[in-house]
């Protein structure tokens, strides 16, 4: 091998190592127990201990108006822990952690979102680096694809969010893990909204991957049962990606009826308008209002039967 190439390769490897080290330093920065810090924040924020949690992605974050729930019901405490770009494995991990720290008879709603490998935006408040690695291991046990590995690598070498967080104060960052009302109105159709027909026409048959996915959800349900905490799964009312629809709907159908929120036909018909959408994947404030009112019926039905 000629000397020039060796030099070039050495330069390239040095650059790659520097970049890798920078990514490792930036990406693995978190406090000793970030989740406890988050809980402390939410407690101090609400002044009382939590009781009913909503765990999910930005769809959960923008779809459940906890302030509205608090107005209707001043006894129970509601926490929207929707975290942008979160996905089911991360949601389940958060639910497991909430099960460990929440009082008996708490209720945890978990969004049944897509199975993505990349960590949610504010992951540093939910999971330590070791936990993130655990989730990745779990993900690859469920499914492996080069496309997902690619996504993970791209996100690992991107520091945009960390830089943005660095220049924001903590309260502002934590506000990103709370209900967010968006008044924007989408006018581009309703193709992403789930219909009654979607729910009835979906087959009950599961692929091997979907079966594994379901087993994982059952584990979370059972862990909750041991601690007297009810876990219920929510199918997002808007699913834009066709692949997510085909993957999630059969799983949702196979979850026991007592562990999922079942939309009424009348609600699905009522919300089927882009008047309630912020964009194809998110509800706006009006949509969140309607969605929350409907969810409250389920909360009453669930807590009434359980407690």
């Amino acid at each position, binding site marked *: 091998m000629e000397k020039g190439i060796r030099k070039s390769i050495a330069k*390239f490897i040095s650059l790659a190592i520097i970049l890798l080290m920078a990514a490792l330093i930036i990406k693995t920065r978190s406090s000793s127990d970030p989740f406890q810090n988050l809980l402390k924040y939410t407690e101090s924020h609400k002044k009382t201990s939590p009781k009913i949690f909503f765990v999910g992605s930005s769809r959960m974050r923008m779809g459940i108006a906890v302030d509205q729930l608090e107005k209707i019901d001043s006894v129970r405490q509601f926490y929207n822990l929707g975290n942008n770009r979160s996905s089911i494995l991360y949601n389940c991990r958060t639910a497991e952690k909430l099960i460990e720290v929440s009082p008996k008879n708490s209720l945890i709603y978990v969004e049944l979102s897509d199975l993505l490998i990349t960590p949610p935006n504010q992951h540093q408040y939910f999971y330590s680096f070791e936990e993130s690695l655990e989730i990745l291991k779990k993900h690859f046990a469920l499914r492996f694809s080069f496309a997902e590995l690619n996504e993970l690598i791209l996100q690992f070498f*991107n520091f945009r969010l960390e830089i943005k967080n660095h220049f924001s104060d903590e309260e502002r960052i934590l506000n990103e893990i709370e209900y967010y009302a968006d008044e924007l109105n989408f*006018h*581009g159709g309703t193709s992403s909204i789930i219909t009654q027909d979607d729910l009835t026409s979906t087959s009950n048959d599961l692929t091997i991957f979907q079966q594994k996915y379901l087993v994982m959800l059952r584990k979370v349900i059972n862990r909750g049962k041991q601690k007297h905490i009810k876990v219920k799964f929510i199918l997002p009312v808007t699913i834009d990606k066709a692949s997510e629809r085909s993957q999630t709907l059969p799983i949702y159908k196979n979850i026991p009826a007592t562990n999922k929120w079942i939309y009424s036909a009348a609600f699905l018909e009522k919300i089927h308008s*882009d008047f309630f959408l912020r964009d194809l994947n998110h509800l706006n404030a009006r949509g969140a209002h309607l969605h929350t009112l409907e969810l409250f019926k389920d909360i009453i039905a669930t807590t009434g039967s359980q407690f």
Partner: protein
Amino acid sequence: MVLNFTLLFLFILLGVTGIFLFNEEKKKYHVLLILSLLFYLFIAKIAFLILIVFSILVFESGKHLHKLPGKIHYFVIIALCLTPLLIDKIYLTSKLQTSDYFKLIGISYVSFNGLSYLFDIKKGYLKPETNYFLLLLYLIYLPYIFIGPLHRYREIAGQFKENISLNNLNLSNGFRLVLWGLFKHFVLAQRLSITVETIFKDTGTYQGPYVYIGGFAFFLYLYCDFSSYVDIFQGVSQIFGIRLKSNFRNQVYASHSRKHFWAGWHVTLNHWFRDYFFYPLSKYFRAKWQNNILMVLTFVLIGLWHELSIKFLVWGMLNAGWILTENRWRPHFAFLPNRMRESLGIAYHIMGASFLAIIFRTNDLAGSMQALFSFNHSAAVDNWVIAKQFMYIIPPFVLMDYINRKAGEKRIDEYIGSLHMPVRWCFYLSLILLIVTMGIPTSSDAYYVRF
């Protein structure tokens, strides 16, 4: 997703290792052939077989082209070669492509490369290849199978036999192009894509001028996205010592007329249609009006190459109409000083190109036209979504434009190579910093992969 950067870097890694370990100078192309076959098989699954059958058809036809008894046999061969492409365009794109086990990727480029090989033999420019594996590599070479550029056999086969080697210059130039492509892709194309999607997905809100802004953003997006992938693939190929053709003139987005634009946009496809359709037929269309009709036909075919649809038929016709109108009116503007004519020309071209970009991008031609010419004030957005995106886009775009301008006719890797070492390294570090801090870390397929 068909293309992904992890696979591409794996391809580079295996290619470099393979070439390093393979001692026979003249047969190093075997390494690239095996890797291209394996990677294509991995991506295309069952559709891989169609490509193999196609390559055998082209190889055997090439050998017997001069011995054919009549023209009818020749046309039958050409029709057979076009069959996979036509079936794909008419039927498979919407049906079978959804299957995980059948992904007929890059068939447009494979078919056109195969056809150009046969046409060149027929014209006597080329002798039929006797080595099937060399022809197979020409058809399936991974760095250009997904989004081109198209190549003539005589331009590339010699490089496969003679040029494959690892040396300092190839490695440096290759990685320079890859870095430049990654910058354009993550910092510019992905950000522009957000703007485009926001506007085109919400046609009820974003109407009138917003649709036009969407068209403008799409025009820039298409350049950044397509050319970034071409740069990356050129870089990958350069690492192995194979120099791929350029598909874009630097600063093609700042063309001062439609004719000037087409001389620097998707150059290899245009040259293909020019050399194998326009020139051969122009001897039958000698009068000026006949020649104009032939040009309209050529542009219609370029449009339909993208997709067999009314939308692209209209797009092709509008392109031809624009050039013909320009040719007619250009003399009337001769009185303007050159500089002024060019500056005004750039503004005028961007305005027209943004309109054509709307047609190119839309999934609902009538709906988009209606949205363009109407403006619902009650639905209009009073937020900064679009403006904010442009605030992020403008600084890196200015940087890209500056480099493109400085590079002039040179390829970017050569221009960067000509800079002094400290400047060069500052440039590398700036690009890396921009990618990791301003890039959008999601990857989507190049827009042109669908064609």
